[in-house]
């Protein structure tokens, strides 16, 4: 105690400085709003930092419980998900236009069953008669054509995919019209054959193949690109291989094309046959 007293009195200037400095700082911080705010802010920053460190440690301890509650929440959310419910509403967009009349409307559908490895492949979608889907409508995806509606039930419809040996789709390359087929010696789900293009037509690799408009599809929809072209022995038609732009292996959503004038066209064309 005596030594301490000697020490303090020996360096009294320093201890006096500390005393008076602390005194004036207390006065400063307590009586001036700016310094008070700064002091509190910096101490809040320190406290915040400390809390953050501690929290990052304690959160490890409750990790298991957090996981359980998150899994539970996931299950609850999954039940509310659109895919768990059968969505009965149809999303159909129409534009009222007095200059041009709407010929095609699109109905969004989700693919619920799909095959690509058979000789004849079919796709099932979750839209049916109730939603205005009828037999013979064209189906496209965001990237290209998918197929033709084959059978329709109340809530579902099956589609005869492009990957079907009976499917014939009118396609055009550089304005020349041919017929798109699949399954004649080719079972690759990414390739199709374009037939009936005469061999005087120059078709190059990479040329775009689109729908012609003679079939159920509006004209100009993309089908794919030419990957190989050549003559088949003795034939007067080109044998063109096409890389399909639709990837059938990961088809999710498709659009069913409703041609408003299909019935009218069909009625007119049946007259030709009866006469």
């Amino acid at each position, binding site marked *: 105690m005596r030594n301490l007293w000697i020490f303090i009195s020996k360096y*009294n*200037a*320093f201890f*006096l*400085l500390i*005393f*008076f*400095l602390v*005194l*004036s*700082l*207390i*006065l*400063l*911080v*307590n*009586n*001036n709003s*700016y*310094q008070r705010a*700064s*002091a509190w802010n910096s101490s809040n920053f320190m406290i915040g930092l400390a809390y953050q460190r501690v929290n990052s440690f304690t959160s490890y301890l409750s990790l298991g419980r957090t996981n359980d509650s998150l899994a539970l929440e996931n299950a609850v959310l999954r039940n509310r998900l659109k895919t768990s419910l059968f969505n009965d509403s149809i999303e159909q967009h129409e534009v009222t236009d007095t200059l041009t009349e709407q010929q095609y409307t699109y109905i969004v559908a989700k693919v619920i069953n799909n095959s690509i490895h058979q000789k004849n492949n079919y796709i099932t979608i979750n839209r049916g008669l109730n939603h205005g889907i009828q037999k013979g409508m064209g189906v496209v995806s965001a990237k290209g054509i998918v197929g033709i509606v084959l059978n329709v039930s109340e809530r579902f419809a099956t589609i005869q995919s492009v990957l079907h040996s009976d499917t014939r789709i009118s396609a055009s390359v550089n304005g020349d019209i041919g017929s798109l087929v699949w399954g004649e010696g080719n079972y690759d789900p990414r390739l199709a054959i374009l037939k009936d293009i005469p061999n005087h037509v120059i078709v190059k690799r990479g040329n775009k193949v689109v729908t012609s408009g003679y079939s159920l599809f509006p004209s100009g929809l993309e089908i794919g690109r030419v990957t190989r072209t050549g003559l088949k022995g003795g034939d007067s038609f080109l044998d063109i291989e096409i890389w399909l732009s639709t990837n059938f292996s990961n088809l999710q959503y498709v659009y069913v094309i409703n041609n408003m004038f299909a019935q009218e066209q069909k009625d007119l064309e049946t007259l030709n046959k009866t006469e």
Partner: protein
Amino acid sequence: MMGGIILNNIIRFVLLIGLQVFFLKNIGFYNLSSPFLYILFILLLPFKIPNGLLFLLAFFTGLTVDVFYDTLGLNAAACSVLAFVRIIFISVTVQKEGFDNEPFPSLGIMGFRWFIFYAIILTFFHHLTLFSFETFYFSEFGYILLRTIFSSFFTILLMLLAEFIFFRKKLR
């Protein structure tokens, strides 16, 4: 003799504080250079003053200025540091025994060279503390240093002026 010293210091205190808070408070250049002449009072306190009394006087001088400046504690803190630097400086440069009959460190008594050095060091530390606590963010250290240097220059100029006006060559 003792009473004379006290009276002298009281008069100096009143004059310097008055000058500071009524006149120099309104003088400044672009907020960068503002003089604090009142610290001359602490500079000119007698050599033989006890440390405790020196700190007490410095603290109350600062507090008085603070009351007028509305910055309670700011000048008091700076003056506390000033008192500490003064004690260190005098203990390093002056043999107290040799100045038994020299009452206070003025320009006339100590000579120009010693006094200017004394004034520069003490003013610099006072101003540095003052502006640091005023800004309160040490991230703006460049600005603090700039203000300190410019203001110190101004203050020292006024100090020398005051000392030359009241110049009294005292013969030993």
